[in-house]
């Protein structure tokens, strides 16, 4: 097992290397190149610019520059935001808790509801319930998150005033859990609905496979309650293929958060990114992409290792 974990981490190294090269060349494709941030500053002269260029080693060969950039990135040095002058990494990390609050709530709700819906669909395959849930999930998958977000905002915040139109908490008040939840309802449910639409299908098909296995028939033949067979025997085995999908979905939820946050003015990483895009704030853009790439790679490793751990039949040599 440990050997497998170590090998899996070693395998991630070439991928990280590839990503770093990709990002490095993206940096150099930025209008003005990596020096662009200094050209912006007031009172900048040509001599000073050349001086800075030499200081940063930008007159050196490309591979030396690449090495320096990677060294900086590993230490969390992604340069300073053009718009705010703060270190990019600091700005991104400041926004991380808000994003995690949004994503984790949506993720937990999404996973639980997916299981319930998926299992119900599978145990009543081809019933009216199954068809209705299937159609709903079709709708959920095809609906663009940002459009649904916009519509929900209009209906429930602007017209009905049931929920606030955005933000993470009412301004000028002390922290209260109720207020936080009240603000989180709309963005969290949109993220969760989208996730349920995707994942309940996986749970359904995985459950269908499990339900047709011999051990399920054996359990039923023993006279066990149908409920017990479904939730304890079949579901445990159906979990296996679904886990991988769900962990990776967790990492990709950042993409959904990006859209949801910018619609609901949620002060998280996604909104920061959307603002950085609008303001051409390249250091923040690059910093956030690098960080998320690492998170996705980690999620990949975790899901593979967990799969190997959960299924004793899987042996990696």
């Amino acid at each position, binding site marked *: 097992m440990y050997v497998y974990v170590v090998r899996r981490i070693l395998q991630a190294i*070439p*991928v990280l290397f*590839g*990503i770093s090269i*990709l990002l490095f060349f*993206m940096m150099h*494709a*930025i*209008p003005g190149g990596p020096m662009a941030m200094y050209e912006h500053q007031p009172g900048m002269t040509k001599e000073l610019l050349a001086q800075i260029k030499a200081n940063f080693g930008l007159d050196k060969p490309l591979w030396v520059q690449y090495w320096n950039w990677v060294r900086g990135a590993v230490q969390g040095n992604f340069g300073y935001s053009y718009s705010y002058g703060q270190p990019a990494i600091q700005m991104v990390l400041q926004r991380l808790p808000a994003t995690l609050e949004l994503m984790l709530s949506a993720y937990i709700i999404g996973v639980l509801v997916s299981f319930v819906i998926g299992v119900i669909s599978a145990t009543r395959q081809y019933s009216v319930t199954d068809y209705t849930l299937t159609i709903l999930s*079709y*709708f959920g*998958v*095809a*609906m*663009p998150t*940002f*459009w649904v977000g*916009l*519509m929900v*905002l*209009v209906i429930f915040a*602007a*017209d009905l005033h049931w929920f606030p139109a955005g933000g993470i908490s009412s301004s000028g008040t002390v922290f209260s859990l109720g207020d936080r939840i009240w603000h989180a309802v709309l963005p969290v449910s949109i993220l969760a609905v989208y996730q349920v639409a995707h994942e309940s299908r996986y749970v359904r098909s995985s459950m269908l496979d499990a339900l047709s296995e011999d051990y399920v028939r054996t359990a039923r033949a023993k006279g066990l309650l149908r409920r017990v067979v479904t939730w304890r025997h079949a579901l445990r085995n159906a979990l296996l293929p679904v886990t991988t999908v769900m962990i990776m979905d967790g*990492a*990709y939820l*950042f*993409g959904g958060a*990006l*859209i949801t946050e*910018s619609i609901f003015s949620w002060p998280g990483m996604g909104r920061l*990114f*959307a603002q950085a*895009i*609008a303001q*051409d704030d*390249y250091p923040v*853009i*690059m910093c*956030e*992409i690098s960080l*998320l*790439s690492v998170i*996705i*790679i980690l999620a*990949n490793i975790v899901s593979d290792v967990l799969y190997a751990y959960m299924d004793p039949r899987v042996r990696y040599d």
Partner: protein
Amino acid sequence: MALATEPKASEAVAVVSRQRVSVFRKIFRRPITILAAAFILVVALAAIFAPWIAPYTLNNPDLNAMLAPPGIHHLMGTDDVGIDLFTEVLYGGRISLSVGVISALVAVIIGGTIGSLAGYFGGWVDEILMRVTDVGLSVPSLFIILGLSAVLGATPVTIVEIISLTSWMYPARLIRSRILNLRNADYVDAARMVGCRSGRIIFRHILPNAISPLIVNCTLLVGQAIVLESVMSFLGAGIQPPHISWGFLLNQAQSYVSNAPWLAIFPGLMIFLVVLCINVVGDAVRDSLDARNDK
């Protein structure tokens, strides 16, 4: 070996052509699929013939009817300067649909080529190409897409490039695994034995037999690409005027969403319905090609 398979080959051709008819029939077995395909066709034709169908023009705002609600004169209402929204939706469909279709095709061609080379040659070619694919799968795609559009600028052409460069990985893996299965099939050995070159074997012998999952994937990618383009445009990193797309219209609608909701409803509805129909057709194609469903 080669001789023994020859009469069978001609039989196979007949079977294939008969299969094609039945596959087509199978795809459109359910009325919902016909409905979905018909809707896509109508929207596509409306977009193509937009200049002839559109009741108004894009640069002739009706200053007496700014932010007019949907009605007889303006089917979907008008925007903040009095341009007919129905006209805008028709023209917007041209970019949305063509960006979607072209991006998906380019992505499938890139992915298909990389996957075929990796699967057919194996060894270090496979190793390198699959690591590149892993890199593509390990980057946060929506973030990379927006980042690239900030760096490269957003024109219809760069948007197609950006979307296809971030969606080829799945088709590449798909075709690679198919080719790994077919690489040592008897008829491929036979082709190799009579001296076919690698390129001919891949494109004439293996690909036609490996292509069906790719077609399904391409269909679904069209829907994905339409959504990606609209997200880009919605966040202001996509289509810029004078071009318009459904996502761009939604971006414009944001500021008027409470007093002119129709500006957000109709373009969004178009994206939703088109993607929904594409998914329905794509799934029908998959089900009809899936041999397991024949039982």
